[in-house]
């Protein structure tokens, strides 16, 4: 007995099955696609939220704006104090003049700046955090310590929103997992029943195959392949539809997206996530088919 010949037979039988009962196959594919859309949507949202948090963390920077009235020596002393704080890797002092120069650069000069009689910008300490430790917590602690220093007017970075945002992300992710589990179960049941209908439609054929000595494996493998093909097709269709929806929805949701993502550009699923969704679809089809055939008896 040759495994290759058998595999070829199984593939042909699965293909024949798909073409032989197109309607149940389409129902399975559509069901899986419909399940993939909300799961993929959640993956897009959490992915973008995660990316924002990561960017926030990657910059690993806290900025302390100093009182305008401080002398350069006092500013330098504050910079040294800041450098001695726990969790701080590096401190760069940006003097008022340097800040103005930077501002001018960004704005490209202009009449507005010419009109200023004196430099309104404060000096600042740009603090890079040490690697390690939890980003949000660490940044928060450094920010609090800086705020406590006399001469520090305001601290940016390590704000409470980062922590809150991280909690929101965890919540969205948790809800996603819950929703995913429910969707997975519902999809599995629908796919299993749809494939079961296909099995029943070909019951006579299965009986005939059993009559000529087909083993259980021989009878079942084509349905498993069929399920996996339907699942893969469903996964791909779901991702395609999701992309379509994404392209339509993103421009419509401008303000809401800004609220969630700040100024960052929203991104679609990463290739690895697309692959995971398609593989998930295939797994759904396969498991659905396995459930269906396990419950089918032939004479």
């Amino acid at each position, binding site marked *: 007995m*040759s495994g290759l*010949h058998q595999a*070829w037979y199984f593939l042909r039988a699965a293909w024949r099955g798909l073409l032989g009962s197109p309607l149940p196959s389409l129902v399975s594919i559509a069901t899986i696609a419909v399940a993939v859309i909300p799961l993929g949507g959640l993956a897009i949202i959490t992915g973008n939220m995660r990316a924002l948090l990561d960017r926030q963390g990657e910059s690993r920077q806290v900025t302390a704006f100093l009182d305008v009235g401080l002398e350069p020596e006092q500013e330098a002393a504050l910079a040294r104090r800041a450098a001695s704080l726990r969790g701080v890797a590096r401190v760069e002092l940006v003097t008022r003049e340097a800040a103005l120069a930077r501002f001018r650069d960004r704005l490209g000069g202009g009449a507005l700046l010419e009109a200023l009689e004196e430099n309104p910008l404060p000096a600042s300490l740009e603090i890079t955090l040490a690697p390690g430790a939890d980003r949000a917590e660490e940044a928060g602690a450094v920010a609090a310590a800086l705020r406590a220093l006399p001469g520090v007017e305001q601290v940016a970075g390590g704000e409470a929103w980062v922590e809150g945002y991280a909690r929101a992300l965890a919540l969205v992710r948790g809800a996603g997992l819950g929703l995913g589990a429910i969707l997975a179960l519902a999809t599995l049941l629908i796919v299993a029943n749809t494939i079961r209908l296909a099995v029943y439609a070909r019951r006579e054929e299965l009986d005939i195959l059993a009559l000529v*000595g*087909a*083993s*259980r494996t021989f009878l079942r493998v084509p349905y498993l392949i069929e399920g996996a093909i339907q699942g893969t097709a469903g996964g791909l269709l779901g991702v395609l539809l999701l992309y379509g929806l994404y392209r339509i929805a993103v421009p419509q949701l401008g303000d809401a997206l800004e609220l969630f993502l700040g100024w960052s550009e929203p991104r679609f699923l990463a290739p690895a996530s697309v692959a995971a969704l398609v593989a998930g679809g295939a797994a759904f089809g396969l498991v659905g088919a396995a459930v269906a055939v396990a419950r089918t008896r032939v004479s």
Partner: protein
Amino acid sequence: MTGRVPAAPPAPRPPVRPIARRPGGDPLIRLFHVSKAYATGTFALRDLSLEIRKGELVFLTGPSGAGKTTLMKLLFAAERPSEGQILVLGRNVARLGERRIPALRRRIGVVFQDFKLIPTRTVEENVALALEVVGRPPREVRSKVFAMLRRVGLQHRRHELPPALSGGEQQRVALARALVNEPAILLADEPTGNLDPELTIEIMDLIAAAAARGTTVLVATHDHALIRRYARRTLRLEAGRLVEDVPGAAR
């Protein structure tokens, strides 16, 4: 061998002729006090004992409901006996595990009155099934199927679908499928029940040819003309009991 079948109600048994012992092969089919009762309590077979030897062509006859089809089903393990033991090709079918049934069926060809062909597959594909389930290479499948179809005279119709064929042709396809794997046993349940007399002879000649090649054949039929014409050993069932076992030579 003696034994009792407790489930069978005591009923007067008609005399049964002793099983004819002919020179020839070993017994390929042996039944020992086999009974088959359904959940409703009705008996399809009662205390059936018989032996069929290698290369024999045996007719199984009797009125409708006598148990012919049930006996056939027991032999290829589509059903299990309620009582007794069944040895087919040296295996105890009564105790055969689910997983071992396919291996048994690959050595038994089965033909039914309603042909049991897959209407959406061509003649060639239908016949090939018996070889594909055992994983034969495609080249071997093609050549064996072609040779088999030539034997039943249908090689020119191999690319057609069964519904395009006449009843006699469909039964020849079914026969080709049953024989293509060179089974040790051929079971034919009313194989000519749907056919006119001329086609009946045609099919029966093919079955007899298989027996002549060494296949053990059991043909269930209520066509007495057919039984007379071929004058082979005949088992007669009535109400699930074997009431007659007439050796072919006696006819």
